[in-house]
């Protein structure tokens, strides 16, 4: 006997789902829910897009002073190695 999985529950499970940490039963319930719920389908997509964006943003900007000091450290390292 499987308990209900409502939208309000599903939105808390997306990370466990993406990381493959849902039990097979729960993963099946989640996937079944998605086949008939546009709202949750869009939510899962947005969480996926968010996670993907986090994995791709890298450097924005490095303060120039820090960069200069590091370059000096690199030169010192090069001279000593």
């Amino acid at each position, binding site marked *: 006997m499987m308990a*209900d999985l*409502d*939208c*309000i*529950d599903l*939105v*808390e499970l*997306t*990370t*466990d789902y993406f*990381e493959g*940490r849902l039990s097979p039963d729960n993963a099946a319930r989640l996937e079944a829910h998605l086949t008939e*719920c*546009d*709202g*949750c389908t*869009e*939510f899962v*997509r*947005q*969480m996926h*897009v*968010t*996670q*993907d*964006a*986090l*994995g*791709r*943003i*890298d*450097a*924005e*900007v*490095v*303060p*120039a002073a*820090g*960069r200069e*000091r*590091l*370059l000096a*450290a*690199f*030169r010192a*390292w*090069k001279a000593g*190695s």
Partner: protein
Amino acid sequence: MSVRLDEGDERYSGLGDETVLAQLRAGDESAFLWLVDRYAPAMHKIARAYVRDDATAEDVVQEAWLGVLRGLAAFEGRSSLRGWIFTIVVNRAKTRGVREARSVPFSALARDESERDDPSVAADRFAGPGEEWPRHWRAEPESWGDRPEERLMRRELRERIDAAIDALPPAQRTVVLLRDIAGQPTAEVCNVLELSETNARVLLHRARAKIRRSLDPYLTGGSAV
């Protein structure tokens, strides 16, 4: 005042760790600066989760780079270069954080943030008990439209992501920085932060959900971007 990537430095982007490592070991300054530009901002944020001010975090980042240079000869590539660098900054930041006797230890922050009631979506987006479909969307998420992943890489939205990360509670910020930004495996995140996997996933989920929410206004309706 800031320094942007030079055009020519794009050439490192597609290279594997081994090639970048070889260039570093050969003393190639532009390879080193490329690495700094790529990782230093995230390193600063990671450090900031452990120490009390930006200046100390900047010191930690500088120390971590010195550690990277010292370790370069012995680095065997068992983890990715990126993973190795982030592990060094975490370890430096932890040492410094402990030395400064941070008043609230990470485990306490993590416990507090994961036990607190903190729904991923505002409760009023779901129908209540008396309504026709209780616990289902009352107001479904508005579509993010075509190719939101591309729009997210534009400068304005990258800045929104940045601001959203900065606004997270400290334990959630650290976990999302290590797991998603730094790309560390969950096991490694748990190990460096001394968290259970369950705890780490709760924090990660809450962080991602908050970031999603903060991006939502910029990706819906078409007018915001």
